[in-house]
């Protein structure tokens, strides 16, 4: 049986047969087909976890061991970060790195080598993986870590599921005293101001900025920075709360440049002009959008894409300004634009590099992909790259000219998956 499936961006939609597994034996049987890819909670925006044949890890979701002396947690790849938080925050442990949604699986977090608001301090998700087990399409299982089979480890971190199916991994949790975050919010009048703020905030554990991508001129790049630290003392448990839901796809006319501009103005005006301090629970700080079920429906049935790129630090100022100008001129940007300063990063296919990253949503519409192609050229010219987990349309050439580790990755992929039995719509488009 097939059913229509899409990523978080609701674009594209593919008729897909999805099978699960709860043991290695069962997974081995599933790996017989050509063109199959592993998937989890499908929170990647584009087509990286989509294929006509998919293997879901959601039934392979058990905690295997936890050492309260070290915080080392081993689990199967289908365990979600949300599940880990529910179980371990009340015991005083937190994720070493978390993306903007907790509804991702461990396997997905590794395959995308996700990053969070603490990248400048803690690096990406995979820098906190002690070891993992990977099943190759042949059915053979290999354990890898930075010291054991390091090539497999390097290629699997951020490898988009193309080296094999991630079975299990051991993650280093970090101790916390409280489920709350001491947060500081600061308004930045323009791009240089927010960059200054980032550079003076590297001592903070968490920092991120919401940036207005519609306002041009003198206020280009006006932003609101949020930075935070785990609170000391206070409760380790959160009060329960009701979730909101978006029941249907919004009709296309609801979101237009006027309504978004109005939202941005209100949002910006709401933030105090001086630094303001507060205490917020970890859910509100890290996962504001998770409290609204199916928020992706606000972009309507045609779906949307999130465009996220990073520029090297020395090109960030000039490049970011030029790209922002192009985006504001297009009027196609949307409310969710996030700016962040990354720290240095190792890895073959991992997205982050030291420099600034910008992520923003675009509803799918006529003319959009032409604009994004244009942005791609600017990003590549400045030595930057795009995040595969968000991507749904970049060209193979763009990938080749921006990911320096690609050739090494491809030869390793050939070694672990000769003949390329594993593939996604994205990997076929990008010829990887």
């Amino acid at each position, binding site marked *: 049986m097939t059913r229509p499936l899409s990523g978080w961006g609701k674009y594209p939609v593919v008729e897909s047969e999805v099978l699960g597994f709860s043991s290695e034996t069962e997974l081995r049987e599933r790996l017989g087909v050509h063109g199959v890819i592993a998937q989890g909670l499908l929170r990647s925006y584009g087509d990286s976890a989509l294929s006509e044949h998919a293997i879901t890890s959601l*039934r392979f979701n058990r*905690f295997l061991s936890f050492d309260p002396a070290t915080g080392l947690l081993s689990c199967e790849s289908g365990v979600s970060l949300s599940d880990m938080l529910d179980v371990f925050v009340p015991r005083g442990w937190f994720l070493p790195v978390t993306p903007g949604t907790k509804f991702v699986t461990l396997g997905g977090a590794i395959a995308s080598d996700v990053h969070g608001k603490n990248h400048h301090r803690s690096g990406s998700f995979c820098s906190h993986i002690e070891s993992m087990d990977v099943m190759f399409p042949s059915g053979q299982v290999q354990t890898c870590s930075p010291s054991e089979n390091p090539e497999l480890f390097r290629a699997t971190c951020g490898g988009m599921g193309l080296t094999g199916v991630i079975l299990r991994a051991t993650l280093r949790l970090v101790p916390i005293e409280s489920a709350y975050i001491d947060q500081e919010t600061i308004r930045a009048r323009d791009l240089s101001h927010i960059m200054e703020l980032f550079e003076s905030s590297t001592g903070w554990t968490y920092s991120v900025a919401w940036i207005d991508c519609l306002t041009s001129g003198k206020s280009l790049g006006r932003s609101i920075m949020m930075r935070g630290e785990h609170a000391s003392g206070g409760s380790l448990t959160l009060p329960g709360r009701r979730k909101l839901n978006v029941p249907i796809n919004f009709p296309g006319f609801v979101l237009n440049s006027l309504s978004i501009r109005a939202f941005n103005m209100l949002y910006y005006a709401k933030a105090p002009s001086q630094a303001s301090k507060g205490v917020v629970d970890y859910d509100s700080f890290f996962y504001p959008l998770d409290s609204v079920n199916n928020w992706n429906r606000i972009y309507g049935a045609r779906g949307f894409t999130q465009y996220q790129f990073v520029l090297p630090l020395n090109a960030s100022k000039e490049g970011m300004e030029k790209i922002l100008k192009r985006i504001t001129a297009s009027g196609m940007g949307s409310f969710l634009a996030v700016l962040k300063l990354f720290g240095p990063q190792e890895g073959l296919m991992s997205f982050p590099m030291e420099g600034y990253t910008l992520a923003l949503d675009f509803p799918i519409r006529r003319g959009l992909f032409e604009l994004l192609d244009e942005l791609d050229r600017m990003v590549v010219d400045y030595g930057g790259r795009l995040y595969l987990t968000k991507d749904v349309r970049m060209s193979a050439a763009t990938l080749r000219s921006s990911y320096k580790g690609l050739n090494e990755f491809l030869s390793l992929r050939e070694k672990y998956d000769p003949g390329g039995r594993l593939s996604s719509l994205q990997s076929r488009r990008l010829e990887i």
Partner: protein
Amino acid sequence: MKDKNRKTALIIGAGSDMAVSIAKEYAGNGYDLILAARDMGAIDPIASDLAIRHPGAEIRKAALDVLKMETHRGFYEGLDPKPDVAICVVGYLGDQELAQSDSGEFRKITDTNYTGCASLLNVIAGEFERRGSGTIIGVSSVAGDRGRKSNYVYGSAKAAFTSYLSGLRHRLADKGVRVITVKPGFVNTRMTEGMDLPPALTASPEEVARDIFKAHRRACDVIYTKWFWRYIMLIIRHLPERIFKKTSL
């Protein structure tokens, strides 16, 4: 040392998705667990998962082959402590078409869903009766409410199991032992993977587990889960054969 105030739930057929959800529900409500299943390798990650999620709960494993009826008495005698509640979640849908001609598959379906379960519950019911306490929960199926062409071998075995539970309840009603029959409709599990189930009618294993625990607490006799299956099956049971024959159910 066993804490005298803690109760123990025996989960029979502990490897299935529904059983795992039931185990989580009971552990979350303060029960110790005995996980009984044939494939111990499959039980290990389930047991470690439960132990990590519920550090207060004692999680034990016990090897059991429901099809080997001669082993049932020995299996149960070996359990220490004895359970306060025994939940039978064994189920095997099998291949209906194959079972129509192949006696091996036919037997596997009827023995797994009925004869094996009933044989084990005979042993447990006897001990509960002597003790004068305990609860037996049998997970049957709405498929047992009326035989239909797509799964009547499974359905008839479940019908027998439903009848068995009904008789057991009758027998033990004044002996201090409760018997609860659970009839799930569509449930999203490995058993139904790849089937095109209508989402509105389909329960998650977690919902089924919650319903079972609630039924236990409220001392119900027969429950359907989701609840409206009671009415769907009421209609299906009362369709005249003349009409039923022509449906494609």
